[in-house]
């Protein structure tokens, strides 16, 4: 489990199956597939009530999609990218019925986006079951131009939108699903330390 002393970072408690749920709406990314396989095990009953969305990301060579599909979830949506997965998830949340339980697993930026989409659809964030798997890469928002960057592994990082060199702060917004990036050379223009790979 990801242990952290960043006060605003969510705690990812791990996927546990809600036996009372009538529908398991599961969003998984990359190595998150393994968390789903472990949590739901081989209880066919649970898989038969599952709508599963999966995007392999960097884990494509491991072919987790095949293992997931082999458990015969009631509906299986395989997506080429996180973006397409999120589009499908939003559509499913629009029509979700009472008794639906939302789960999210994968890298932090992915979990965050699923949780944020849930909140937008009136799901209490405490009720969403989450498990971190994969790298420690961060999703970052530039506080100046508000542009987002996925899978940031270094700090400082140059904003891909406005070009300002950003310090990646240890401060996380659940609503934005991102850490905050703030100008690192505002008080010493041009004096930008070398990027360090700290979120691996």
């Amino acid at each position, binding site marked *: 489990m990801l242990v952290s002393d960043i006060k605003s970072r969510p705690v990812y408690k791990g996927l546990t199956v809600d036996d009372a749920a009538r529908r398991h709406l599961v969003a998984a990314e990359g190595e998150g597939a393994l968390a789903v396989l472990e949590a739901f095990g081989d209880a066919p009953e649970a898989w038969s009530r599952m709508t599963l969305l999966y995007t392999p990301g960097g884990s494509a060579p491991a072919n987790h999609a095949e293992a997931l599909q082999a458990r015969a979830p009631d509906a299986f949506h395989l997506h080429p990218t996180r973006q397409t997965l999120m589009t499908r998830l939003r559509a499913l949340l629009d029509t979700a019925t009472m008794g639906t339980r939302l789960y999210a697993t994968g890298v932090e930026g992915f979990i965050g986006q699923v949780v944020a989409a849930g909140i937008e659809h009136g799901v209490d964030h405490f009720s969403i079951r989450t498990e971190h798997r994969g790298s420690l890469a961060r999703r970052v928002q530039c*506080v100046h131009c508000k542009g987002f960057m996925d899978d940031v592994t270094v700090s400082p990082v140059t904003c891909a939108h406005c070009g300002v060199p950003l310090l990646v702060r240890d401060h996380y*917004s659940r609503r*934005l699903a991102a850490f905050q990036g703030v100008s690192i050379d*505002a008080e010493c223009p041009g004096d930008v330390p070398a990027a360090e790979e700290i979120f691996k």
Partner: protein
Amino acid sequence: MTIQFKSETFRDDFTFSNSPEAIRRFPFPFDKDEYMYAVNIEQHMPGPIKSPYEFPIDIDEHYVAEMRDRALVLKEDPLRCQSLPHMLTAEWDLVELLMESMAKNYPEHFELTREGDAWHWINRPLGIDQKFTFGDTSTLPYPPMEYITRQCQGDFCLCDQRNDDLWMDAGIVTTQADWSLDFDVGMSFKEWHGPVPLAHDIGVFDRALKFLLNLQQGRPVRRLNWTMTINPRLDTSPENYHKWGIDRTTVTPENVGNKVHLRVELQALWRLPRSNAIVFSIRAYLIKMEELVTIPKWGRRFHRVLRDLRPELADYKGLTRFRQMTVDYLAKHDDGAPTSPGFFPD
């Protein structure tokens, strides 16, 4: 008691300054010669006449200029004012709190007439005369919180209370000490306080939250917080930090008295009647070092506070680059004499 509103700026040519009366009523935040975080909360009772604590909402000579600055910030960046859909009742609560308080305590400047839900609000300094239906958003030119806070000094956060926590679910923040409302919306009490050093470990936020969860209607509380700002700039937001951060490098021994400002936040908290939300007001007061040292006790005391401040706090508040130069300036105004207890001038 008519206030003479000044015409002044908080950006570009920075013409802001305090009158001698404004200096005397400045909410100096140190009652001792040293400073550390604490749960410094007291009842928000009427204070001495002419002090910023005399009335629940303080309106002063900077009112009109500050409202103009707020309008400029909002025009550039509408995300400084946000409210989640469930906060509408709290927004109306805020309209009532501010209009009632301003009209009652500054009748020369503000007037409120209520007949059931038919309200009539007059704001003379800003030239506003508005009839509206309380509770009907379509009868105001802005959403309720934005409408009234475009006419009231200070930033405001509206916090919803649920799951034994407070949630920053609405606010208008244009005069902040380097934090982002857009980033913090939706956070809980300890989450939005995440970046504050030391205070979590000594239990300040545990105790403060517990206290606030039990805040009673009709019994508001207040506290003071402080930082320092270069130039009298109200909008020291993270959003614009890449533009104003450079100011911190412009302090010299020659201009320190004029450029370096103590920035004090008078923060008050009320429980709101209809929504059960809490409103947190953050009213910023600025005073340059040259003005501060005209009150000898304050010059002496601030010298000692700043000199001995823990480095973690100095870093967090962003003082590190100009702290020593300011301490050197203030040292010339500290003769080593003992200071009397309490905040007020001798």
